[in-house]
């Protein structure tokens, strides 16, 4: 049965994106005017795949910083097999999204390289295929959360400019989950639309139809009955204190 279904091609053939990836970068192209090696003229434009470099000066404190968090506690186990990237849901859609490489950069503390990927690094959908298949139980899905923490700490300007939407939505989630104790999905949807400047869409036909349907069958009002858990205030306070006093980069005030 599976074989009959082969004619419709998946988004990426296995391994396709590994070849087609952005291996060529502008600053690694070298032009040689008169280059003769062993009597053969090899002058022309050449791409340097591997630049000579020294990777010995690791910033070990960076590695520790990630290891101290709950989500990144298994970073030391990764042996770079690439199973996470091979099974990733997002990689076929955004080919620069490469969990294995992100983990490698975090292991080395290579912030310069990491900075190039800020625009895709947050796209993880949390489907846990990588964690399921990881032979070393590194839990790459949660490592992407650790990556989020790192980006937030070291590149605040980029977060402000490129990840504004993501951060705003996270803030709405935080306010509701920790603040109210329960999540109001309708409020989440409308305030997320408003914050991301898409208020107009809420008046479009599709949104209007959905809202009308939910108002008609009474679901729009069931949200009023959601209520708050009793005594949530104490838990809220305790959680906020915990987040303030935590010593790793998970600290909310970083």
């Amino acid at each position: 049965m599976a074989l009959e279904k082969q004619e419709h091609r998946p988004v990426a053939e296995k391994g396709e994106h590994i070849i087609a990836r952005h291996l060529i970068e502008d600053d690694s192209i070298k032009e040689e005017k008169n280059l003769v090696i062993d009597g053969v003229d090899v002058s022309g434009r050449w791409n340097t795949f591997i630049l000579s470099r020294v990777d010995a000066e690791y910033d070990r404190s960076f590695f520790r910083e990630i290891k101290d968090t709950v989500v990144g506690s298994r970073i030391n186990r990764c042996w770079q097999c690439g199973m996470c990237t091979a099974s990733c849901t997002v990689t076929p859609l955004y080919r620069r999204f490469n969990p294995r490489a992100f983990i490698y950069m975090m292991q080395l503390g290579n912030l310069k390289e990491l900075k190039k990927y800020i625009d895709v690094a947050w796209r993880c959908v949390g489907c846990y295929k990588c964690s399921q298949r990881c032979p070393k139980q590194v839990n790459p899905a949660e490592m992407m959360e650790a990556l989020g923490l790192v980006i937030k700490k070291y590149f605040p300007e980029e977060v402000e400019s490129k990840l504004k939407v993501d951060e705003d939505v996270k803030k709405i989630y935080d306010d509701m989950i920790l603040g109210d104790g329960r999540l109001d999905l309708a409020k989440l949807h409308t305030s997320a639309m408003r914050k991301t400047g898409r208020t107009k869409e809420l008046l479009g036909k599709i949104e209007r139809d959905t809202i009308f349907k939910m108002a008609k069958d009474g679901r729009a009002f069931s949200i009023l009955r959601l209520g708050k858990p009793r005594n949530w205030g104490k838990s809220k306070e305790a959680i906020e204190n915990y987040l303030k006093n935590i010593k790793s980069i998970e600290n909310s005030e970083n």
Partner: protein
Amino acid sequence: MNKLNENQAAYYPGCALLTIDRAYNSSSKLVSKKMGIELVEIPDYNCCGIGEMKSKGAAAMYLPLRNMMLAQNRLGSKDLVMACSVCYHEFERSITRVRENRNELEAVNAIFKEAGEFEEEYAPGGEARHILEFLYNEKGVDEVKRNTVKPLKGLKAAPYYGCLYSRPSMYTFTDKKPHMDNSERPRFMHDFLEAIGAETVFYGNEVQCCGGRNVVQDEETSFTLCSQTISKAKKAGADVIALICPKCAGALDVNQPKIVEKFGKDSELPIVYLTQLMALAFGFSKKEAEFGDMISEPLKVLKDRGF
């Protein structure tokens, strides 16, 4: 509050099931009751964190574990049943992590102590159970067959498990415990659908992701993933897609008009919950199973097939 008897189970509804996904909530309760287990909601529950709190250390684990404490304290039940796959994942994650990691257990207990809501500390022991796995293991397929009074003959259903019901096995213990489902090729929903007389189709995207987590921030990704799943199921001849997660419903059902607008009619297929189909087969009316709640209009297909 009274402690539970043996025919009752502590139930965590979660935020989605009490509001826009009430169809899943009520049909789960109907089905469980018919099969001989009453689901009793825990009082004063709080949100599980739906995956957005993970980077907050032990606070992310406190949220689900507070509900485990409530189940233990108020209802006297170690285990907690839930229908939402995301809640299930958050619970299993917290429970597994604090069982395996003493530091994290201490950090969570420090928050419990400061909140002062419970006298005792959290002690590992209880389990979170997904309603599909719970009914399958506690009651079994035969019980479903026995309760089926109106078999859904001729209905082709595409079972869609989504991500977090079976993955990752380091938290859910699929593959690791013999009574649990398979993590890469789950079977429990297939078995239930076949037991109520429906036909299951193979379409290859059973455990794919719907992008539900990023549905607010990153619609583009979610729409692409959903349209792949829906069109594959449609091509395989499915009449409906059966779900076990309200987040999948948010992505596949509520957003379906937008997906159709973007990707065309190939991405149009009625979405229902597994428990709704079971309730229908158990003799409840379509109104009781609340099929009318779904945006993708499954009522038409059900009428065409004569149910």
